[in-house]
């Protein structure tokens, strides 16, 4: 049976708080003289101030208080001199940090490839302690005041500030209450709750712009005009959406010109009012409409040259 045993007031404390440790040397620790002083070492430095006393049952106990423990982590050793070497009898890990701040900027995006609802948040300042982030959610009829069915917790991986709720737990067209909970040894905090319809936070991928091969049948554009063709992103074919076009003459120092509300059915558009014999960069983005959604990113630039 080991000679020494450390017990702590608390293994984890707030940074700067005090910690009290006691080390008991059990009496049948025959190797050492029972009166030898118990020594404390924090990391590599011996710690004076241990109060040693003999307990009624003959065992020795030393108690040490560290008034302001302001390291995030350190090992505390209970030791004794034996022969002329310092012997470690037990070791305890001390940790200090902060309770988790309230996670902020919680936002979610519906991914149409995986049909997962991915939410992300700002975790707040480093707590210096292992902190678990859990995305909690429930299905709700109204404005998320009442919980209909619960949804299994989504536990973020270590050091990640996002989590994805799989499709099978979602009702895509019903309000869902979502918040994130942060928890560590010093406390728990919760973000404000979002109330959203998963499909209303869908973010589309940009459409694909393409150029029609010049051919006799193809309508040759009027002077100062360009024919623009595009294809919506395949997984969003069932979603009614509106798109925007922006263009910029080369070299690209002039600002972008925006051409809003393109026709959604025809998937082509004659862009006019352009300079002749000039190369333009065209980009397009789309958004679920009239139902809510997020704008896609701008598509990669397509370079087209207007006729002479």
């Amino acid at each position, binding site marked *: 049976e080991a000679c020494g045993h450390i017990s702590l007031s608390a293994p984890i404390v707030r940074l700067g708080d005090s910690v009290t440790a006691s080390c008991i040397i059990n009496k049948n620790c025959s190797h050492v003289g029972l009166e030898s002083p118990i020594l404390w070492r924090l990391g590599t430095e011996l710690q004076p101030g241990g109060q040693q006393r003999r307990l009624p049952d003959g065992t020795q106990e030393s108690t040490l208080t560290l008034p302001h423990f302001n390291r995030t982590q350190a090992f505390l050793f209970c030791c004794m001199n034996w022969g002329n070497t310092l012997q470690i009898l037990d070791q305890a890990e001390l940790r200090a940090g902060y309770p988790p701040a309230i996670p902020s900027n919680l936002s979610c995006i519906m991914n149409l490839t995986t*049909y997962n609802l991915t939410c992300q948040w700002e975790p707040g300042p480093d707590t210096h302690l292992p902190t678990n982030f859990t995305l909690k959610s429930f299905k709700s009829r109204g404005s998320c005041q009442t919980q209909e069915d619960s949804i299994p917790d989504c536990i973020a991986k270590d050091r990640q500030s996002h989590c994805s709720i799989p499709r099978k737990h979602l009702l*895509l067209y*019903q309000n869902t209450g979502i918040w994130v909970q942060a928890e560590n040894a010093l406390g728990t905090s919760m973000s404000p709750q979002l109330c959203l319809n998963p*499909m209303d936070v869908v973010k589309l991928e940009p459409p694909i712009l393409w150029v029609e091969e010049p051919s006799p049948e193809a309508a040759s554009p009027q002077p100062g005009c360009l024919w623009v063709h595009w294809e919506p992103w395949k997984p969003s*074919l*069932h979603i*009614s959406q509106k798109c925007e076009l922006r263009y910029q003459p080369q070299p690209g120092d002039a600002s972008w010109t925006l051409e809003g509300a393109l026709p959604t059915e025809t998937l082509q558009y004659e862009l006019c009012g352009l300079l002749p014999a000039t190369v333009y960069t065209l980009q397009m983005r789309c958004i679920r409409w009239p139902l809510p959604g997020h704008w896609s990113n701008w598509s990669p630039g397509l370079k087209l040259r207007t006729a002479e």
Partner: protein
Amino acid sequence: PLGPASSLPQGFLLKCLEQVRKIQNEGAALQENLCATYKLCHPEELVLLGHSLGIPRTTLNGCPSQDLQLTSCLSQLHRGLFLYQGLLQALAGISPELAPTLDMLQLDVADLATTIWQQMEDLGVAPALQPTQGAMPTFTSAFQRRAGGILVTSHLQSFLELAYRVLRYLAQP
């Protein structure tokens, strides 16, 4: 009973139209896959099998374009979707490759049924109790599940074609 379009929120109708289009795309994908992989391409070749397995079919005759009664139309739409949700569940184990498509299709049909049921509740025309699923066919072989998949999806597509027309009519401004 409710008059036709007036009382249905536009948001509800647009959501339903989007959901129907999604289900139709997924149904078509499942049919294409069954045809490509198992050479089961024509539902009309499987009518007899459908009868012998007792695969139920439902139509949407409660939503005539003239004198449409919203309550009966919505509840028939819900009952139909509820039936197809059960039939799709009965097809579980159709094949490892098709399982994801079948799962998504079933989740989306259930989603649409929920959207409609909640709208009926909001309008105060929902029956007191949710419907309960009747007896479902049991598919005892891989072939029966695949043939059943062709039949169920083709019935579902026809049902949704009608539903889409009704919802579009109701969504007209």
